[in-house]
């Protein structure tokens, strides 16, 4: 619940902080409606469409409505997938509006004690500290390996959690051991004639839970003729904070990352998670009002490139033989990789270059899978509805391998496969892992 007083502060903050130019820029044409998953799944409710959300934000700014429960619900249900941006004729930066609005609401609202505690632990205590991330993941690994997992599943304790969370627990990848997570390289030479010097942004989740994928990423870069620096000082990208209304936390992380990558003399900074990459290329927007960091942020953002894009650009798929046993492969776009980093052709071209991989494009591959950070946990119902549609399209391709380029999407697709009971027929993999598998 938001109290009347909180609503008033929120309203004032909206007036002061929301970018009015951007709000006015929406000419209400409705071109964004057909690409908004929540608009479609809500049964075409205007309040769950991009145009409707912008109108609501503007109405709060103009003092026409109060930022009440319904208003919050409308914003909470937004996936933040930003599929509404590339199709907008006016070029409305919806993602920026959403981030600002969520930040205002969160900063001025007293969460209930449990929610506050969880937020504090996650946003201040855990993600900004890579060593604690390792510890947390270590605990998860202990849980998985020690037999506790079996016990938990056996006692049915998981049934106490929302259905999606319980299934999620089953599909989480095996966490590497503490030792593996700690001993990370800081430099790797090229394993083919050197063409580029790149830095690798490891990501907090990627360098723990998805360590194998990070290893594969570096291997592919080496094979593609890249020399790699992996600076120690890097941190979580801050996306989780940014999307959850913890803007100042994400700014701190941004500054740390910019600093860590600044003097490495590299051509590009490579990411392998669409969600992180998209947040990194937005650093210049995040720090636009900070005179000391603004220009440094622009230099940083200009170097960000997704792993698929660089492999494609250096003709990795033409130089290295890629082969797999026959299988039908399909690709689920990572929303942020596609809509923000504008990378959609490269991953497809790489997959199509694998001999034995029969590539089938699924219908609406560019529509969100419903993962969206922690959306699948906090907005479970809508998320599962969106996932059901996604699985229908996936099944229609008869694919046995579903490829994604972002850890969140990957987990969500694994969840979808598990929910459909298809675990023995279908697998979800990160594109990097599949490419690594295909390298002869």
């Amino acid at each position: 619940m938001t109290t009347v007083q909180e609503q008033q502060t929120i309203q004032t903050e909206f007036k002061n902080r929301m970018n009015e130019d951007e709000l006015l820029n929406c000419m209400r044409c409705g071109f964004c409606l057909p690409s908004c998953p929540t608009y479609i799944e809500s049964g075409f409710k205007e309040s769950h469409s991009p145009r409707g959300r912008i109108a609501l934000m503007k109405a709060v700014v103009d003092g026409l409505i109060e930022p009440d429960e319904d208003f919050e619900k409308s914003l909470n249900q937004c996936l933040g997938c930003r599929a509404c941006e590339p199709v907008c004729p006016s070029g409305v930066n919806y993602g920026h509006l959403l981030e600002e609005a969520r930040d205002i609401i969160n900063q001025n609202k007293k969460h209930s004690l449990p929610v506050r505690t969880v937020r504090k632990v996650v946003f201040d205590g855990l993600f900004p500290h890579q060593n604690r991330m390792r510890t947390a993941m270590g605990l998860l690994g202990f849980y998985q390996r020690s037999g506790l997992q079996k016990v938990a599943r056996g006692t049915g304790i998981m049934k106490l959690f929302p259905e999606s969370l319980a299934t999620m627990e089953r599909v989480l990848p095996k966490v590497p051991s503490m030792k593996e997570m700690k001993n990370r390289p800081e430099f790797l030479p090229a394993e083919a004639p050197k063409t580029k010097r790149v830095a690798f942004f490891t990501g907090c989740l990627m360098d723990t839970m998805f360590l194998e994928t990070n290893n594969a990423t570096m291997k592919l870069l080496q094979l593609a003729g890249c020399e790699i620096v992996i600076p120690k000082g890097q941190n979580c990208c801050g996306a989780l904070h940014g999307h959850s209304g913890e803007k100042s936390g994400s700014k701190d992380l941004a500054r740390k990352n910019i600093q860590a990558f600044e003097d490495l003399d590299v051509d590009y900074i490579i990411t392998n998670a669409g969600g992180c990459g998209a947040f990194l290329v937005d650093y210049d927007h995040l720090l636009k009002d900070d005179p000391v960091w603004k220009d440094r942020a622009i230099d940083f953002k200009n170097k960000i490139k997704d792993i698929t894009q660089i492999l494609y650009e250096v003709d990795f798929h033409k130089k290295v033989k890629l082969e797999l046993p026959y299988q039908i492969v399909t690709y689920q776009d990572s929303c942020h990789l596609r809509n923000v980093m504008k990378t959609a052709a490269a991953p497809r071209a790489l997959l199509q270059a694998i001999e034995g991989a029969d590539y089938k494009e699924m219908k609406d591959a560019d529509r969100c899978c419903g993962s969206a950070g922690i959306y699948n946990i906090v907005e479970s119902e809508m998320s599962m509805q969106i996932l059901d549609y996604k699985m229908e399209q996936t099944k229609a391709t008869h694919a046995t391998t579903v490829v994604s380029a972002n850890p969140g999407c990957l987990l969500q697709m694994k969840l979808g496969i598990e929910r459909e009971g298809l675990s023995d027929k279908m697998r979800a993999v990160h594109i990097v892992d599949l490419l690594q598998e295909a390298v002869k």
Partner: protein
Amino acid sequence: MTVQPGAITLDIINMAEANGLFYPPDPGSMKSSTIGGNISENSGGLRGLKYGVTRDYVMGLEIVLANGDIIRTGGKLAKDVAGYDLTRLYVGAEGTLGIITEAILKLVPKPETKKTMLALYEDLEAAARTVSKIIANRIIPATLEFLDQPTIAAVEDYVKIGLPTEAKAVLLIEQDGSPEQVDRDILKIEEICKSEQAVSVQVAKTTEEAEALTTARRWALSAIARIKPTTILEDATVPRSEIARMVRAINEIGAKYNLQICTFGHSGDGNLHPTVPTDARNREEMERVEKAFEEIFIKAVEFGGTITGEHGVGVMKAPYLELKLGEAGIAAMKAIKAGLDPNNIMNPGKMFAKDTRKRVVVGK
């Protein structure tokens, strides 16, 4: 095809084409507009010149009246003159006379093939003459679209496709039909363009090339919309022969009120979209926009045109309806409205203004 009012226009078009048939009305909003909205606004589209507008494809309707009665008008018969043609009355009624709950649409055979071409002009009149000459040569192109110089400059500035920004007009022309006829028509149109001193004429050889040629037209609205936060687009319409005069009049009005007005639209049917990028917060400029549009409407009617070709009257243009219809015309329409909706519960405030001639764009 029988459809429910909430069906999306593009879905209807795709469904028809999947069955080898064709539903021609293709408003720019077809990805998100519903057939109920299209019927209520009598929407046109790029293919309107050759194929007509929504009205020409509505054969019958089911309507819930203001008093709760449900009526059916028309049907699948090609000939049916039993009573008043209520179907036509409800097409374009803007929801003021009842709610459409079902529609029977006419479909036509799908054209076998299509060709696209683009012509650039240094002279506005030459482009206008081209349009007249094409029709005079008994060719009705499927599409005949027009962009003026400010629009060309805006598009080039935004998408950078190498359009000469000093060109005074661009015509995008498409013809569809049987391959022989399409080839013949396109050849003839090319000849006409050249005879009217078009500075460049390109005919697409492949679908990709055709796509590329339509880029400028497709991006027109986006390009203009990005210039300033608020975008106001109108659709004054004049007889085809008056296009050049109207565009010139619009440019003069723009200069007079110190506004940037970009005009593009469907030159084949004289339906123009003068568009002003502006800022709703700038009260003083909005007043000028208001005055400029009023003059544009008056000019359009003076040239034998109308205040709206396809977008409808709604609230914004209600004060100008009398310009076009005259007092008696309004009275006749109000009589129909009063008869079918005596309590004024169907879209009150639309179509008929409380007082005339005020406020196109300045609200409250």
